[in-house]
């Protein structure tokens, strides 16, 4: 994979950090690999182009970018939900656990082990949290499995257990997010894809949820692909990240390097030092990583 | 080659907004008009009075329904009731000595008043619920007309329509009836064609697409929906009146019952929602196809030696026309109008079709 790397630093396997499992370029085969994927909506609107990324087995990877960059589209191309929005993968390869998942129905992909936690939670509003979890167990047969998974989810999210009888539409944002993640976990996934879990949540809740996700990643070896606008929070928990802009991947680096990268700091982390507007305006016309 | 677009350049707004900028279209329209006007000379009296005449009147009714359903996007499952109101009102007016033209206009106005009053209440809801309210209106009208002798005209419930008098001249021949129907159909078609050039038309399209967005840009969606209902009811009322005076000659409750509403809906759907030429096609299709299928099946049955009971044959038109609705919705949901538009688009650039993607 030849991707433009930020001018500042190069990814150094030796400095594999203690965060989130395997470092980039580790020996294990990636659990998910996208190669030059292109997605078109309604046969006319190009959403993402030339997107290549990898999630190592057991790793936590972030996909960052501003609104409309194409992050959700990337996730939907993996989970198969594009067809619901009249989108099509027109080019490129999607491989999960070494086999191509192109053209598989969403149900099949969930069975293979891909869990997609949707943007905006999308819990089943009229069902209780308990019923939400039960509904998500449709793909994993036996009732015993279902009970076991449900107890595990309640173990990770005790607050959910407290509210398990309420109507899910009335849960708070944080509780709904926990429910959505728990619902994904019910399908016994090997890859958990989270789409903007921090959306609309208070910072301490975001930290709490991210910590729980990191715990799950560590304890169960569940690979995580985290899509986030909130780059600060995301870069705290992942091992490395991709940056998307206008439907293309523009940067791929370890989380440490990305945090230190001045461009990233400027555009996504709120700036390092005070700069005059004149400098910024001039700078924004010339992003160094676009070739 | 057939539709020459070379040399068409507009030098003022009027020519830019012309209804038929392409000369081939204009020639076609003029040709059709000539055919229509000379039809009494070229076709038999039977074709004229049994096929062309009802086709024209039902087309105008379909156009009226298309206004509310295809252009304004509001459901109306009770259009036959509106037509019935217009028919009954005009017949009663004419029987009481009102001059024919005024009677017909009165019929249209009565339909407008009742339709708008109902719409005023019904337009609080949308979609399925609006459809159901109009359906309920249809049932209520059915019931009122058949149970109130003052309206329906006595126990036999058949009200004879008095002879027509257009501008003082009695019109009694088939040819006369034909021209009256043709005239009305042309007026409605012209109105609908011009609709897309007017503010009203644009407002209706805005309301149809997203009414709250339309409200945001200053289009009072409730008022325009009401206007659409009123206009459409007027067209329906007059069409109903003309249908009675020129075709049926007498009015009974069954002529405007709920199955007629469904037939009209079928005409709109098969013709194409919002398509003007589609209304012509749809009306023709729905009127003619069941009869044709009947003959076809009867012929097939006699060839195969099978005997089809009279009862069976009587219901085949209905089966055919239910099947037609289903097939059209599956194959080409935008109806015959879209199929025609596809053909025309193909011919517009023929033989350079490869230029289009």
């Amino acid at each position, binding site marked *: 994979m030849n991707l433009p790397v930020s001018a500042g630093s190069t990814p150094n396997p030796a400095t594999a950090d203690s965060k989130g499992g395997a470092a980039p370029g580790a020996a294990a085969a990636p659990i998910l690999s996208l190669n030059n994927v292109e997605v078109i909506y309604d046969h006319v609107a190009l959403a993402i182009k030339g997107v290549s990324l990898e999630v190592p087995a057991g790793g936590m990877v972030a996909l960052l970018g501003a609104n409309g960059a194409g992050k959700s589209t990337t996730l939907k191309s993996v989970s198969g*939900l594009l067809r*619901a929005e009249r989108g099509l993968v027109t080019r490129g390869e999607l491989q999960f656990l070494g086999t191509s998942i192109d053209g598989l129905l969403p*149900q099949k992909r969930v069975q293979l082990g891909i869990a997609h936690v949707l943007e905006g939670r999308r819990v089943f509003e009229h069902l209780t949290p308990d019923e939400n979890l039960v509904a*998500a167990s449709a793909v994993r047969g036996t009732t015993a499995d279902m009970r076991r998974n449900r107890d595990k989810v309640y173990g990770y999210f005790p607050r959910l257990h407290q509210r398990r009888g309420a109507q899910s539409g009335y849960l708070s944002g944080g509780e709904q997010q926990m429910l959505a993640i728990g619902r994904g976990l019910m399908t016994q996934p090997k890859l958990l894809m989270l789409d903007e879990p921090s959306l609309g949540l208070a910072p301490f809740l975001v930290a709490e949820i991210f910590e729980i996700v990191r715990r799950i990643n560590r304890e169960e070896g569940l690979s995580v692909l985290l899509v986030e606008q909130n780059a600060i929070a995301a870069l705290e928990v992942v091992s490395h990240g991709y940056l998307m802009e206008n439907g293309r991947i523009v940067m791929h680096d370890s989380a440490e390097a990305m945090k230190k990268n001045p461009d990233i700091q400027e555009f996504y982390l709120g700036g390092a030092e005070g700069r005059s507007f004149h400098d910024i305006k001039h700078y924004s016309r010339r992003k160094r990583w676009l070739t | 080659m057939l539709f020459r677009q070379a040399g068409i350049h507009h030098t003022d707004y009027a020519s830019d907004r012309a209804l038929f900028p392409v000369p081939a279209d204009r020639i076609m329209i003029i040709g059709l008009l000539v055919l229509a006007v000379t039809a009494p000379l070229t076709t038999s009296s039977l074709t004229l009075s049994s096929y062309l005449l009802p086709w024209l009147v039902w087309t105008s009714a379909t156009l009226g329904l298309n206004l509310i359903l295809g252009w304004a996007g509001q459901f109306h499952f009770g259009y036959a009731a509106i037509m019935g109101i217009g028919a009954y009102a005009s017949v009663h007016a004419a029987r009481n000595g009102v001059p024919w033209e005024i009677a017909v206009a009165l019929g249209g106005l009565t339909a407008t008043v009742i339709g708008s009053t109902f719409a005023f209440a019904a337009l609080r809801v949308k*979609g399925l619920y609006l459809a159901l309210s109009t359906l*309920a209106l249809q*049932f209520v009208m059915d019931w009122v007309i058949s149970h109130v002798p003052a309206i329906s005209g006595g126990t036999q419930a058949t009200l004879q329509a008095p002879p027509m008098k257009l501008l003082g001249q009695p019109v009694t021949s088939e040819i006369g009836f034909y021209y009256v129907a043709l005239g009305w159909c042309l007026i409605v078609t012209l109105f609908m064609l011009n609709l897309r050039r007017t503010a009203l038309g644009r407002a209706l399209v805005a309301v149809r697409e997203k009414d709250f967005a339309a409200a945001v840009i200053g289009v009072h969606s409730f008022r325009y929906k009401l206007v659409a209902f009123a206009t459409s009811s007027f067209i329906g009322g007059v069409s109903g009146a003309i249908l009675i005076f020129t075709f049926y000659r007498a009015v009974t409750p069954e002529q405007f019952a709920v199955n007629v509403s469904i037939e009209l809906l079928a005409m709109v759907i098969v013709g194409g929602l919002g398509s003007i030429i589609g209304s012509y096609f749809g009306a023709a299709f729905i009127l003619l196809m069941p009869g044709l299928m009947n003959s076809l099946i009867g012929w097939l049955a006699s060839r195969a030696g099978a005997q089809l009971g009279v009862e069976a044959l009587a219901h085949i038109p*209905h089966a055919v026309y239910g099947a037609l609705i289903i097939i059209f*919705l599956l194959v080409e949901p935008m109806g015959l109008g879209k199929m025609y538009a596809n053909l025309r688009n193909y011919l517009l650039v023929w033989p350079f079709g490869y230029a289009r993607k």
Partner: protein
Amino acid sequence: MDWSLFAELALNGAMAGLMYSLVALGLVLIYKSSSVPNLAQGAMTMLGAYFVLEVGRHLHVPMWVAIPLAMLLMFGVGIGIERVALRRLAGRPIIMILMMTLGLDIFLRAIVLTVFGSSGRPMPIGIPDDPLFLGPILLNRSYAVGAAVALALWGLFVLFFRSRRGVVLRAISDDYTASWSVGISVERGVALSWAMSAAVATIAGVLWGSVQGVDQSLSMLLLKGITVAVLGGLDSIGGAILAGLLLGIFESVASGYLDKLVGGGSRDLVVAATLILTIMIRPHGLFGRHDIERI
């Protein structure tokens, strides 16, 4: 005020109303899962009744075998209709879906008339004709059986929707995309609801057929069914039952007194008026949850 007349009208009306609920139940099942108002429900009821008669006649089996067999047949018919007719129109404007179900209704009615003729046939399920007596009040025995069946079905569905499969169906009716994302096969769930609705329609057809004979007029139950469904809330099963009771009582009592004033035929008027009033005053019905903007 003749109280015993009132009570008789009310009780018989309530039981007939519960039988209307059976038709409404089929409508609600489909609407809950696929947001389609199935205007062909009346025709499906009629078809179910005819299937029972034909199965009984051609296979020479008694009624209690013919009914489940016909239900199985209709189960398949429901799946077939959903797959062939409705799936292609998913996402299209609702007018087209409504017209499709309407077209199905017209087609099915005409086919039944063509194949089976227009003369009515009896549906012998062994309910004696003599009325039940509750004090001075005469109760229609067929209505009583029908009401009992309706209540039993309601209980069955309440239990069903608590089961795993039922929860999955409720999840589907909440959010298609979220359902896909957790591996639920929305297509299978929708097909299942159509199939269940067709089976319920068969039961309704059998019961109503025993009351008024099996002929194409059974499809006219659509208007009553829709009114009950809208009154109860298009996606509420419990609402369909309660609304059936209410409409049945109201229709029976009102027409019992109105018929003398207007000379007959006021039942349909009462039903239509109830429909209009419900839509004007409370469009989502007694227990409907989805807001009407969704349409």
